[in-house]
């Protein structure tokens, strides 16, 4: 049974509600490393899956499997209905219309759809309507120094293909974006402004309103990497006013192999396709082809239908929990994680130390101990964290480190788990023969 939180409960989950949430996630019952309870603090890398998501995929394959959007039989109808209902569920979670939701294989693919559509428009594809996406030498693409490689490398490539110049907004010592630089870095030459809603390293939440306002002043398209926000905060893409957004299923308690590109309807309408072939066409002759309207225009070939259905179930699960309650619970985990890291001598936080506008993604450096070794000692205590550069090498370079360790919470994270993490973190430096103090 799905847990439903009482939205009137307000600020946080009761012990009973949290226990019920945890019971929804079968994997959380297993042990690791010789019988230790699993403390899963790696939800920013990938979240665990509730029964409703696992069951949705199982149900699709067991009861409804057929090719979608073709065929006249009952199964085809049911499969198509499941696929499109899932689209509507995801749309409802993020304040979008269903026809503004394009299924992609993951968030990286979603960003690349925009990037390659821009390249195709630059090459003249899509006709007059698509000219608004074309780039030329002298045009600029602006990103931030905090981006995941998925929202950086595609823009480097677009710049290389079109002759446009890549520029970026910096990150301050506090781990927050230098929003003040918008005024100087984003100019009339800026055609694309791509940035993460929430950094997957620092946990800092971007001032989306300021980014969107500046982009509108200069007529730039905005592309939001919403991978770390959609699972953890109430997100209304329509209200935020971004032009495009990308997020993945597997980080929001859904399956792997599925993600979403959100695009404002009029932009998707004008955008040329990227992958071409079956299922995305209207009329095909031997000479030429007309393309289907979005979202089908961007869904070429057989799609990941079962995963999309699973992602729809995840969206429904989150909506039934209530994103305000999810965010309130995780804000409490943020506070506990920040306190845990601050309490251990020789451990340095990378990212904002205050709770304002940040989520429960807490990266840190242990003086004298490499992140891999930190992760190994925590793992020995049953605690799963991420180590490395978290696909954000420039941000790590900005802070003068090659790697960090990162603890990240999900809706199922408990105060006891954070306490276990803090206790294990305190053993790391002594294990490697280093003093308690830095």
């Amino acid at each position, binding site marked *: 049974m799905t847990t439903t939180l009482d939205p009137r409960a307000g600020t946080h989950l009761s012990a009973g509600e949290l226990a019920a949430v945890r019971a929804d996630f079968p994997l959380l019952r297993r042990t690791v*490393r*010789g019988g230790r309870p699993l403390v899963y603090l790696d939800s920013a890398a990938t979240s665990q899956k509730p029964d409703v998501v696992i069951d949705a995929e199982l149900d699709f394959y067991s009861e409804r499997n057929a090719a979608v959007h073709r065929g006249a039989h009952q199964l085809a109808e049911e499969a198509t209905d499941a696929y499109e209902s899932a689209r509507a569920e995801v749309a409802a979670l993020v304040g979008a219309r269903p026809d503004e939701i394009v299924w992609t294989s993951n968030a990286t693919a979603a960003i690349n759809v925009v990037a390659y559509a821009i390249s195709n428009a630059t090459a003249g594809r899509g006709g007059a309507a698509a000219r608004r996406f074309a780039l030329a030498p002298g045009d600029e693409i602006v990103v931030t120094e905090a981006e995941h490689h998925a929202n950086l490398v595609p823009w480097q490539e677009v710049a290389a293909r079109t002759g446009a110049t890549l520029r970026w907004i910096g990150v301050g010592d506090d781990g927050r974006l230098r929003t003040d630089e918008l005024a100087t870095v984003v100019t009339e030459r800026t055609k694309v402004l791509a940035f993460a809603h929430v950094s997957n390293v620092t946990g800092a939440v971007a001032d989306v309103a300021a980014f969107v306002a500046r982009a509108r002043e200069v007529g730039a398209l905005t592309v939001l990497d919403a991978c770390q926000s959609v699972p953890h905060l109430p997100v209304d893409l329509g209200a935020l006013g971004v032009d495009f957004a990308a997020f993945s299923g597997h980080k929001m308690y859904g399956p792997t192999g599925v993600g979403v590109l959100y695009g404002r309807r009029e932009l998707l309408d004008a955008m040329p396709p990227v992958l071409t072939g079956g299922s995305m066409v209207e009329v095909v002759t031997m000479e030429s082809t007309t393309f289907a309207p979005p979202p089908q225009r961007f869904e070429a070939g057989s799609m990941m239908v079962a995963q999309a259905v699973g992602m729809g179930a995840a969206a429904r699960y989150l909506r039934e929990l209530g994103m305000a309650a999810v965010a309130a619970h995780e804000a409490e985990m943020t506070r506990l994680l920040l306190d845990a890291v601050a309490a251990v001598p020789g451990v340095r936080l990378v990212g904002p130390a205050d709770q304002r506008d940040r989520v429960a993604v807490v990266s840190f450096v242990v003086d004298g*101990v*490499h*992140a*891999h*070794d930190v992760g*190994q*000692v925590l793992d*020995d205590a049953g605690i799963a964290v991420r*180590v*490395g*550069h978290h696909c954000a*090498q420039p941000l*790590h370079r900005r802070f003068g480190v*090659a*790697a960090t360790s990162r603890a990240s919470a999900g809706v199922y994270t408990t105060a006891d788990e954070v306490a276990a993490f803090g206790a294990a973190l305190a*053993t790391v430096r002594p*294990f*490697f*023969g280093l003093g308690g103090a830095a």
Partner: protein
Amino acid sequence: MSGAMEQLYQQLIIEHAKDPHGKGLAEPYAAESFQVNPTCGDEVRLRVHLAPDGALERVSWQGQGCSISQASISVMSELVEGLPVAEVEALGEDFRALLHTRGEGLQDEAAEDRLGDATAFTGVGKYSARVKCALLGWMALRDALLQAGTSTTSTTSTTSTEEA
């Protein structure tokens, strides 16, 4: 802390990580290899210095990474000093084989004797995510020897993605 951690992080490994052998790039050198572990950003730049008879006089290196990778490069630097290239390559093969025994060891006393201190990394094989840490320096050494033209093995290229 469990015994598994003491078994993985043997005292010898912690000591080599703290005070590594051969660290600091030296001139002149026969060839150099730069290897990165793209998943975690660990990196090593390693140079081979050859004796007049073609033997490996020594290696020098600069790098950053976890204690397993740094200690492994250090132990390797000690181990291969002054050896004929063919022997260095045989040691490399033995070490790679050792790391793929999932912590069981080679069951080959002669080979383990030749590996000496490098057998301290046997336990790393239990942790598949760490195997590449221990092999980083050995990959750089194999690549540098190939580049120096002294390798006795075929030159069918080494790549940074070859070892898992």
